[in-house]
């Protein structure tokens, strides 16, 4: 008969209405600022820059010394909404592998423009830019606080490990391997150079050329 479905639907909502007072399991929401759902590992919001801890480079702060970014500007070019602004440094500094690299003097992300597509992460050859899970970024200063500068963007590798453990540990593992391989190569090169020096004693060895 006409209207049967409507009655059944009304009964269903009535059951929800009264049920939500009785059983807490029915609740689909949490009281957000007080109660939080643990963030899932694959969550992604806006990009940040990873730095390695324990690096020293003169008087620079730790994050600046350990920044993985070499300011290659691939992410800047690939970014679909063009929200990344990078300024390359004039001089170089050693990276985690001991190699001399450029570093960003300016690295800004306009997170009001960013669309969280993760393309910058995909294209980064240095595992430097990664997606953050921080989402409480509301501010009343659109041109100040939503244009995030490098000092705010830089976050430690241990933080990265804490938010995306499996992904970060895979990368760490890979980097350790690379480092070990480089060490072996450097050792071999040094030995070869030493042998060469012993025989010719002409040129100093070029460190790190094997990378």
């Amino acid at each position, binding site marked *: *008969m*006409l*209207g049967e479905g*409507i009655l059944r*639907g*009304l009964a*269903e*909502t*009535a059951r*929800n*209405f009264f*049920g*939500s*007072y009785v059983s807490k399991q*029915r*609740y*689909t*929401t949490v*009281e957000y600022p007080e109660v939080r759902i643990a963030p899932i590992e694959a969550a992604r919001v806006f990009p940040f820059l990873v730095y390695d801890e324990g690096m020293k480079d003169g008087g620079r702060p730790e994050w600046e010394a350990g920044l993985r970014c070499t300011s290659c500007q691939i992410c800047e070019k690939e970014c679909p909404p063009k929200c990344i602004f990078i300024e390359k440094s004039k001089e170089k500094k050693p990276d985690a592998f001991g190699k001399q690299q450029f570093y960003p003097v300016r690295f800004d992300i306009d997170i009001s423009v960013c669309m969280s597509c993760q393309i910058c992460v995909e294209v980064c050859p240095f595992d430097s830019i990664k997606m953050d899970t921080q989402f409480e970024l509301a501010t009343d200063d659109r041109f100040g606080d939503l244009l995030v500068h490098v000092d705010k963007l830089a976050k430690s590798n241990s933080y990265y490990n804490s938010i995306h453990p499996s992904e970060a540990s895979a990368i760490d593992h890979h980097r350790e391997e690379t480092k070990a391989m480089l060490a072996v190569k450097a050792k071999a090169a040094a030995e070869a150079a030493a042998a060469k020096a012993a025989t010719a004693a002409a040129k100093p060895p070029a460190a790190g050329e094997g990378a």
Partner: protein
Amino acid sequence: MFQTFDQIFILLRDWVLGFLPVGLRPGAGVVLGVVAIVCVFPALFALTVLLERKGLGRMQNRPGPNRVGPFGLLQPIADAIKSLTKEDIVPTTANGFIHFLAPLVLVVAVFMGFAVLPMGRNMVLVDMDCALLFYFAMGASSELAVFMAGWSSRNKYSLLGAMRAVAQMISYEVILLLSGLAVVMITGSLSLTRIVEAQNQYTGIFPHWNIFTPWGLAGFLMYAIAATAETNRSPFDLPEGESELVAGYHTEYSGFKFALFFLGEYLAMFSISGLGSTLFLGGWSAPFSFLQWVPSWIWFFSKLMLSIFVFIWMRGTLPRLRQDQLMNFAWKFVLPFTLYNLMVTALWRFLGEGWQRWVVCTVLVVAGYVLLGRVSMRREHFGPRSYRYAE
């Protein structure tokens, strides 16, 4: 004692009028009544918005607003402050004067409807002979306000929403009127006070409400459907379907004018619920004869709020109709059935007292409903769409 509580507002009014010179009393009495209506119903509106948000939340297993004040009770005040302090934006190409006038016309037309609703024993602002006609005349005027709002905004969404709203309101107003007409046929009066008094009688402990008759139940169902459509409530909320038309005819309104539209929508809901309970649910009369000591206005307002709750319940349950479904439903099922119901009502009137008319009319109403539902609401296979006017 109970008499005093029943008539407390009348006594209060007379007490205030006692301080005025005799010549001013009739005018001042009307002004007091208007002030009471203008204060009570917006307050009820604030309460209803909160109830609706809480109720809808519960139906979707959410708690609803619960931040402002205890249990979110102060939410309406926060909403009011927000909408009053918002910037009032008028589009540059809009037709300024009509854009300004539309919400005013809407709210005024809706408020006028309350003038004839009997909200308790002796509690009616204007006891008019043609009260029902007056009510529908005011309801018809609010359609024009909707059109004015949609057209003057110079926005395609607004105009589309307005045209949808007007087409829908016109179609369902016919049904609203015809289902009310059944009551008029039985009572023999267009006066709403007379209609309530006719229902305020008891057989045993049961009242003579119109809904407790076969034709009254059918008429009430059709009235409820038409009232839902007339107030643009879900599932007939096509004129303001957010997913298609942003907000329909009030897309280009902000701040206080938007609040007026919102107020107008809820006031229309109150007045149409009030009329529905007056016509079918016995107005201010008590549901059982032994409950007559409870003040009459309490009964009126509880019936009103009950209807509002059903509105909210429907909104929480049903998905929105498509435009062609809406029109098909109105013209192919609801209208024919209402006309059929009118005939059954006439039969009821002429069969006279006795059990025969109960049997005959019940059988006729149920048979008509089932048959008409089968025949006119058959599932049809839709061919390619044809556009009649948009070419």
